[in-house]
């Protein structure tokens, strides 16, 4: 069997790669700046404003224009927009995200409390979803003409189309209300004591909901990608050379087929910090998704900006990681990157 070796990079190639990397970094910086600007602008484009955090509508109605202006100035949303923007940019770069208007605590503190729960919930579900989706996708592609492959395809499409809210409620009714096996809401026990058992108990239903509604996408992508590779010319050549089927799959098909899947998984990890608004709301899970939703509902500008910032940074970083690791998996990308 012919082995293809990757050529050693030349001095010229290294310089080109350096320019390529610098160009990429500049692109990421530009993306980050645009995203930061949007993070500032979008909350303020929403109807209503944070004034509603300062009393019931009936109470706010009694305020004079001067009293309204005084509140807005005191809590930092009364200044002209450009001043607010520059203050915001300055705060971002000094990692001071200000005070949450709804929680009256530093935004960093609020995000810091929610982030671990989201990483646990969404991280666990991404790992299981990836394993399940990719594994079943490979099986679905290899057994595409058999009953098992069709069954997997049908099952994946069904699960992929289930609304998270509906499935979550169904699981609560079944496992919490009927079987009394698992808790209905929250992340820890009723006394707030954090134990591994309680955390795992509270994780099961949300993770199952995310996994069941999420693996179909990866399944379909993996299956489609592998099917494309299996019918490609190099694989046909390998067949013609008499390479055993299992070896063809392992050496010639899986690696190229999983490259786009790798990108998809990296992007999913990027969005990990967004949490899952629906699942965290249904299960009253104290993660970033629910926090972001609450911040949007309350028009809590500093908290919204903070949550969006974490999401932006994660997405940009994971895209960079995907870009950086892609050449390691695909020699063609290494050569392409040098050119």
């Amino acid at each position, binding site marked *: 069997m012919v082995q293809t070796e990757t050529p050693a990079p030349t001095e010229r190639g290294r310089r080109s790669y350096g320019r390529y990397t610098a160009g990429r970094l500049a692109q990421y910086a530009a993306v980050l700046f645009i995203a930061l600007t949007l993070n500032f602008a979008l909350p303020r484009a*929403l*109807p*209503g404003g944070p*004034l*509603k*955090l*300062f*009393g*019931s*509508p*009936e*109470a706010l*109605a*009694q*305020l004079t*224009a001067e009293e*309204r202006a005084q509140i807005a100035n*005191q*809590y930092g949303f009364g200044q002209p927009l450009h001043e607010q923007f520059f203050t915001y940019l300055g705060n971002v770069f000094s990692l001071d995200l200000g005070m949450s208007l*709804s*929680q*009256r605590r530093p935004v960093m503190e609020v995000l810091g*409390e929610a982030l671990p*729960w989201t990483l646990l919930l969404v991280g666990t579900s991404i790992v*299981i979803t990836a*394993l*399940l989706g990719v*594994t*079943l996708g490979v*099986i679905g592609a290899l057994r595409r003409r058999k009953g098992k492959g069709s069954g997997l395809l049908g099952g994946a499409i069904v699960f992929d189309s289930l609304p998270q809210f509906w499935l979550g*409620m169904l699981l*609560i009714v079944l496992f*919490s*209300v009927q079987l*009394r*096996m*698992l*808790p*209905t*809401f*929250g992340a*820890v026990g*009723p006394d*707030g004591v954090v134990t591994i*058992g309680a955390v*795992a*108990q509270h*994780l*099961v239903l949300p993770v*199952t909901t995310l*996994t069941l509604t999420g693996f179909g996408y990866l399944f379909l992508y993996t299956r489609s990608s592998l099917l494309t590779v299996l019918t490609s010319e190099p694989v046909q050549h390998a067949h013609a050379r008499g390479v055993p089927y*299992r070896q063809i799959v392992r050496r010639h098909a899986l690696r190229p087929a999983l490259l786009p899947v790798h990108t998809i998984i990296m992007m999913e990890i990027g969005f990990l910090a967004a949490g899952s608004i629906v699942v965290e*709301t*249904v*299960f*009253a899970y104290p993660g970033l998704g*629910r926090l972001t939703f*609450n911040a949007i*509902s*309350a028009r809590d500008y500093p908290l919204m900006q903070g949550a969006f910032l974490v999401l932006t940074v994660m997405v940009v970083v994971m895209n960079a990681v995907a870009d950086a690791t892609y050449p390691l998996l695909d020699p063609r990308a290494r050569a392409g990157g040098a050119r």
Partner: protein
Amino acid sequence: MYRRTPRSIAAAGLLALTLAACGGNTAPVQNQGAPGQKTAGTAASVTISISSDESTLTPFTNQTGYPGDNLVNLIFDSLVTVQGDGIKPLLAKEVQTTDNKVYTLPLRSGVTWHDGKPFTAEDVLFSVDYYREHMEGDSAIDVRPIEKVSAEGDTVTMTLKAPDPEFPRRLLADMAMLPKHLWESVTKVKEAGTDKAVGTGPFKLTTYDPSRGYTLTANAAYAMGKPKVQTVKVVVIPEEATQFAALRTGEVHMSTRLVPPQQLQSFKQQPNIGIVEGTEFASTLLAFNTGRAPFDKAEVRRALAKAIDVNDLVKTVLLGQGTPGNPGFIHAKSPIKADELPPLFDPEGAKRDLDALGAAPGADGIRVLSGKPMSYELLVQSSSTDRLRAAELIRDMLKNVGVAVKITSLDSDSLDAKVWPDYDVAQGRNYDMSMWGWSAPTMLSSGMIAQLVASDHKDGPLNVVGFKNDAVDAVVKTLTSAPTMEERSEAAKQLQKLLAEQVPFLTLYYRNGTYAFRKDTYDGWAWQDGAAALNKFSLVDMAL
């Protein structure tokens, strides 16, 4: 082996996670009604679910009127409290007045703050001044009607700018007393922490976690009664369906969400679940933008109102769990005496009225008024299932008389921005018709009702329909300056008559108050008008 391995790994992984989490434990999850803790009408611990975080539970930081104010009122006391139809003294021993302008309030002795310091008249003076300086906050009070406040020994005297017979109910009962020694250093009230959630009330705030909730512990030194529950845990569960599921499993013992009419029978059939019911004074209305043609004409508004069957709305939308709207706005059981006004529904009369206005049906059956088809937009809050359904029925009812309605469903903030931008009626409005509603306190004092329709922005800060009518304004002036309750009630009756004639909005219905609780844990829930079931009387044996 190759064929089985991936599936086996995936199945084993899920199974392992499930088993690890369940721990092979087939016993029910925690807090299953806490059997054994209950004695008749008392409990060691009760868990209450709310829908969103209420911040640090001070009078300036809670986020909502209900249940936020209710929780604050478990920690803080006011000088008087509402009980049934009347007013009972609380931190004040009694309320003395001869002219409804000067109120003398001798204070109860032996009352202490949660930190052990004594409650004094100084705290009352400080509270009034502090509310005057800081009007932001859901439980914050507009004390501007108080001209001056003074103290002599343990007796406080409040002098109003004008006589107000509703002052004890409208203001004193809502004004939580603040400890001067803790609050005098607070300049940004919205940033007050839990260390400022120190009152004289029956419960102390002992823990707070924004994502999990609160723990309130009984105040053994409470001067006005004895708490019947030792610990009240408050958990935050945003989703209504999850709250009710947790109630069924026993993880939650009382939900602050209204039981939807469709689920009421199902709850009543559950052996461990009880329902506490009472009159809700929150109203649901059809608001007309009276500044926009053709809703600027009372004849048009009245004709449209005649086409709408409020009894059918209650029957179909609320499954009978509500009261049809009174054309004069006031609920029959409100402390303000409601006038018995005949229902407006008369579809044939509506057609006659529209004919008389010259609104003849066009080719498509839609009437044309002043050269324009009678086709209007109706805004409705997307989060309210009963209002969405009511809007659909209203559309059908108006279609019967030749008026087309296009329903636009919006989130609450977007709708508020059109109907009540920045909660300031001076900023105008941009809608034809909208589903709307007012919370219970609006129905509890006649002064508040006047605010719904007075044309002057200062007198009518709740006039979201932009209504302007000289006769109504005159009655509002009479009502708000009436020195006695009798005169005020008489003016309120006149106002109701005018509302029924002018129809600046149509009162559609008042939902019944129905809340579910675990009766195997605690069954002492008592209804209080305007405060529903989560109140001091539910959790404390009050000795007033």
